[in-house]
């Protein structure tokens, strides 16, 4: 409750702070996700695994403020998610969290660059931050910022104007990563972003993503079934360990 008591003057103690979380999909009694405690410190890169249907994606939805649990402690970046209205949670999500999904991560009728810049359209904060990152006042500073991010992820600037559907799956995932990273959100949530890639592409993609997160000191929650990837992370968790 007391913000200063949490030590949030610069960086808060936890990026994710969960206690006694219980969630059930409305109208479905079979599944129940309950997590007694889960805390993540800033800059951690967490590998989260778990059986199919165990509730990994559900947990990510709760962290992103798309789903609302029963009353409990669910703080993300020191914000009490259970206290926000649904539109405030939408706003919070785009302001502070970048998302990456398994496949078909892009809006097909937008160009690559437009896809990358999507969060900036919904969030003045992300927009502001990516303008700052561009370091210029040029009219196309936002585009420059997107293109630079794409370049850092190994994508040629020539691709920026292409329709999103013109890209290979591996390239699409990098564009999605650029979209998650643009405007420097504090938290990146990735739900099996590599499972559609072959093992070479997987390693390549993971390297790039981790490098970016490390460079920019972004906290990462990364869900995957592939245990071999766990070694690249600062912490590896099995959802069963979290569930109570």
């Amino acid at each position, binding site marked *: 409750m007391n913000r200063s008591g949490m030590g949030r003057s610069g960086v808060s103690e936890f990026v994710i702070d969960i206690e006694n979380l219980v969630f059930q999909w409305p109208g479905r009694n079979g599944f129940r996700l309950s997590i007694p405690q889960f805390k993540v410190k800033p800059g951690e890169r967490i590998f989260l695994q778990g059986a199919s249907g165990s509730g990994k*994606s559900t947990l990510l*939805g709760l962290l992103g403020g798309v789903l609302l649990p029963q009353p409990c402690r669910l703080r993300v970046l020191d914000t009490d998610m259970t206290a926000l209205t649904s*539109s405030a949670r939408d706003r919070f999500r*785009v302001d502070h969290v970048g*998302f990456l*999904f398994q496949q078909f991560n892009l809006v097909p009728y937008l160009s690559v660059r437009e896809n990358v810049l999507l969060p900036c359209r919904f969030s003045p904060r992300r927009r502001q931050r990516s303008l700052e990152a561009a370091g210029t006042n040029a009219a196309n500073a936002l585009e420059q910022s997107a293109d630079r991010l794409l370049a850092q992820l190994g994508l040629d600037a020539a691709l920026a104007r292409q329709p999103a559907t013109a890209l290979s799956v591996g390239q699409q995932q990098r564009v999605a990563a650029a979209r998650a990273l643009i405007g420097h959100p504090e938290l990146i949530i990735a739900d099996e972003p590599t499972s559609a890639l072959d093992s070479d592409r997987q390693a390549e993609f993971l390297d790039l993503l981790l490098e970016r997160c490390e460079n920019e000191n972004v906290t990462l929650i990364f869900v995957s079934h592939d245990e071999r990837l766990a070694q690249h992370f600062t912490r590896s968790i099995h959802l069963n360990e979290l569930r109570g």
Partner: protein
Amino acid sequence: MAISIALSVILLLGVEQLRTQARENFSQSISGTDLVVGARTSPIQLMLYAVFRLGDATHSIRWASFQAIAQHPAVAWAIPISLGDSHRGFAVVGTTPAYFKYFRYADGRSLAFSAGGPFGDIFDAVIGADVAEQLGYHLGDHIILNHGAKDIGLAQHADKPFQVVGILKRTGLPVDRSVHVGLEAIEAIHLDWQGGAPIAGLSIPAEYVRKFDLNPKELTAVLIGLKSRVGVFQMQRFINQYRGEPLLAVLPGVALDELWSVVGIVENSLLIISALVVAVGLSGLVAVVLAGLGERRRELAILRSVGAGPRVVFMLLAIEGLIIVVVGSLLGLLGLIALSHFAAPFLQAHLGISLTAGLISAEAWQLLLLVMATGFLVSLVPGYRAYRISLADGLTPRL
């Protein structure tokens, strides 16, 4: 999808356009005429053949009747009209120079010549703008009239060619598609005819026709202008009660209203049908967008992940539908303008309706707005569906 909406809009606006243009045209043609007189028949039929050259007259009226009417003190002018012959599909109108002097249309405009002048001699002809243009006639050209309305080829007045002495400016009326000759000329070419066929063995050369009595004996109709419109009903009664023969005088406006009330049923059913086609187009749009939503659940999840609330998703989908409808409607509008450009000569030729291409009536605009508004309303359906989906799916689309 936008195409099917465009096509349905073309149909809807096209029907509306035709409707208003036809009315406009018809009422313009006779706006300066107070009474139309012919042999007793139905008012609508009289209007159709006397003014619009549609259909044939069943009976004619006597020259004496015309004189009685023309000399009536209330009458400012009377134009005799004798129909029945044709020239290569264009109606031949037997009349007097009074026609060019007194005939009024639209807002009181009178006929004007683009070349030459009224007919003076027996075998002089004045042609309408379309006749001149389509047949490539110039002043001084010789033309041969056909007997009857159809081009049969055989029944020609080939022995008595006419000379073009005047070409009228375009009016947008049936006048454009008429060949005007003197009443005497009509008598002259039929001197050696009887009962619609040349009299065998009798052929009177053109040089000799002047020796015969060419005073007109029969007419098809008379257009009358009154000195004062106040007396129009009195005059109508006078004609309808004329003792010499059964005559009919109609007030053009009244007869047209009668015509529209008959045609209105057809018009309205046409409008309803085209409205239904538009409805089918719009529901097709909704069906396609709805069906596509299943495939787009990931897209919705992406939008949610970048901060779009369910309400934003709703708006996006509704706007998407609206854009398709607007694009379709505008395409339809362009299509219609293009189409009326191409169809104008055809309609002019076959229905006597002159389209002012590119000119969309206020009613048509209203219809168009109505289509777009309906389009927006029906787009709310996929919008709402997307709203439900994005609420239920969150970030993990169920496929």
